[in-house]
């Protein structure tokens, strides 16, 4: 990353109402499932084999559950989707990223965690699923006063 040239772009921020490209419909069933198993079922995900090529970069301890930074990258050939689950959240399914022609299976995002929990990531490649897990401890930061 250190050879990354940081280029600040001119940002044109405008709210538009023009029709958006055909969107993958938001999977209400999966996102409102209250257990990891239910969420995976509604996503049509069978059993997933653990894989060392699916990397989760995240702090072991988060001072605050409101913003937990997570970086996910897959070295599994043909990865076309990444699914992020936070096991102990009321609604475990947190996000699903579908990578089309031209995008690498990589994402960095900030998530909310209600308590210490396993973060489980699944990768879809050529119709098969792979998984990786990492525990993140959530504590109360600050002076608690």
């Amino acid at each position: 990353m250190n050879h990354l040239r940081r280029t600040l772009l001119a940002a044109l921020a405008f709210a538009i109402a023009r029709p958006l490209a055909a969107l993958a419909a938001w999977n209400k069933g999966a996102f409102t499932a209250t257990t990891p198993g239910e969420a995976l079922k509604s996503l049509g995900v069978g059993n997933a084999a653990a894989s060392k090529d699916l990397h989760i970069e995240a702090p072991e301890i988060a001072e605050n559950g409101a913003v937990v930074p997570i970086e996910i990258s897959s070295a599994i050939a043909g990865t076309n989707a990444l699914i992020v689950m936070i096991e102990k959240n009321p609604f475990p399914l947190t996000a699903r990223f579908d990578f089309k022609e031209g995008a690498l299976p990589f994402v960095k995002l900030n998530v909310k965690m209600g308590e210490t929990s396993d973060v489980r990531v699944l990768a879809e490649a050529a119709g098969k699923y792979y998984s990786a897990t990492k525990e993140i401890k959530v504590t109360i930061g600050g002076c608690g006063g």
Partner: protein
Amino acid sequence: MKIRASLGSGFTEVRVLMTHPMETGLRKDADGKIVPQHFIQNLTVKLNGKTVLDAQISQAVSRNPVFSFRLNGGAKGDKIEVSWLDNHGESAAIEAAVA
């Protein structure tokens, strides 16, 4: 909403910053009223007009979301467009060229 794109070796890292409360529907405001759910559900990234990433996200994504993605290759002048749609039907989009 703002995009920042930087050329890596063989990929373009796109960082998107969005202003959105991402309300979970579980929070109470100052005078004890529940703040209704209000969060981005769909996120789309296009490179030169072609969709390269389609994301579905939830209220478990932090407030004022920040995402980083990586697009294959990428060169000066490539047009990157990011747009989102939330559960109230509101949407926003931003377009920028890789400098």
